[in-house]
């Protein structure tokens, strides 16, 4: 299975044989899970999203056309799932519910660099949640998945121009939130 291309694996699935399911999962689950996790900031929901994406991939295999990338199709399903999740009113409160436990940092093994890096991670996570879902989707697919605007447009069901605008606005917001404070020279979150 490992030597087969995505398209070849999907042809087997389309013929009703689900034996490539595990191989396809191994190829894309990490990307799908991380996309969903960063989008929703909720590990439980990200797990559900990941499982649902691959189940739908099998159920609706006939809808996959070989001319598109499998990754693009899978991200479309994942993005749809995440959007639906956020649309449900009762899920909005669950956003950002994952709480990381902070423990006292052993002084001798906590270089400033590491501490700052972890603070940066937390700032970025929070800043991403300030974006609109559309902007977040666009920036996640662009920055973390390295997808082109054309692919993002296909996933998000909008024009390339709209993707360009979403990424631009997302970057503007993130830049304001994350870049240096001119007065004190320390990082700050201006929009959060």
């Amino acid at each position, binding site marked *: 299975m490992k030597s087969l291309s995505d398209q070849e694996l999907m042809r087997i699935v389309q013929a009703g044989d689900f034996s490539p399911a595990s191989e396809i999962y191994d190829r894309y689950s*990490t990307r799908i*899970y*991380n996309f969903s996790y960063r989008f929703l900031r909720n*590990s439980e929901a990200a797990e559900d999203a990941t499982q649902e994406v691959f189940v739908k991939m099998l159920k609706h295999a006939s809808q996959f056309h070989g001319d598109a990338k499998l990754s693009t199709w899978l991200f479309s399903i994942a993005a749809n799932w995440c959007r639906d999740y956020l649309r449900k009113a009762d899920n909005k409160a669950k956003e950002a519910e994952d709480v*990381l436990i902070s423990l006292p940092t052993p002084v001798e093994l906590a270089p400033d660099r590491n501490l700052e890096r*972890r603070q*940066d991670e937390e700032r*970025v996570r929070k800043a991403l949640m300030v974006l609109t879902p559309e902007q977040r989707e666009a920036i996640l697919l662009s920055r*973390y998945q390295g997808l082109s*605007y054309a692919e993002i447009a296909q996933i998000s069901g909008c024009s390339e121009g709209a993707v360009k605008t979403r990424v631009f606005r997302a970057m503007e917001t993130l830049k304001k939130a994350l870049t240096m404070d001119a007065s004190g020279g320390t990082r700050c979150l201006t929009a959060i």
Partner: protein
Amino acid sequence: MSDCDLIRESMPMLLTESLDSQRRENAHLHIEQCPLCSEEWNGYKETWQLLGEVPEVDVPARVKERFLATVNPQAVAPPRNVVPFVRRPAVRWLAQAAALVVIASGSYFAGHRGAPVQEAKLPPIVQQTPFSIAESRVLPASAVSSTIEGRPDIQNISFTDVNPSAGQIGVSFDITSHVTVTGHPNDASMVRLMRYVLENEDRMSPSSARAIDWVRTTYSQPGYSNPEIIAALSNVLRNDTHEGVRIKAADTLKTLTPEMSVPDTRAALISALKSDPNPAVRIKAVEALLNLARSGASLDAATVETLRQKASQDDENVYVRVKAAEALSNVRP
């Protein structure tokens, strides 16, 4: 729209190198000459770099297991050594027994209505067979006691002609009862029951967290360590969807594992350390591995390698890194 506005709008594409070479060159020329755009560009680059600080996390193994179970339920092996219980509340067996009590009593009184009073020959009492907890069972009326003890509440009753030609009737109903199972913590039956309770959270209430607390208190006592209980906790750590329960499972393994080093448990702890999204679970897992290392248990190469990776992983929780390093320093050569 001014040149500066156009350049700024294209900055995200400049970052992803999505612009064609001519536009890219023009944009860079402008940025070099324009202090405002230069400052803006530096902000973009810094933001882009900061976004990269969010590390990628591993997908919990249970997600794949659940997915494959959906695709092909047979692909996922059933838990080993689990008592062959069915998933319904364990008290239903009494319902059938009580139903037959009714049948027996009804038959008895119907058969003697109007007849001369004689000393009743009661059917034999239910025999003391091995305790069976099952979804349902059918007993002959002769196997049921003639007295209905405890005045049980009877629900969902139905009357059937089991075999009209043979004059057989049936009365079925549910009954709620409370069962207390007693025994030594290391009795095989008690261990199997505890394992069932731990591994079937969805079939019990109030929660498996309480069961884990109880297991911890009981099986951490000297001489009470039990590999099946540890295996059950390992499964909970691997599969439970609730982070709080996984934390408890890992924490309990921490107290139990030094006495009972089970390869499967090590694998569960390593898996949690590697890929559990919750840092508290990873912390408990690494602490359990540290305890194992301190106790002198031999750790295999894969465990040592995982500890080494965690100890040097920049984006890992600092406490996890420290404990992983400490565990490594305790590994016997």
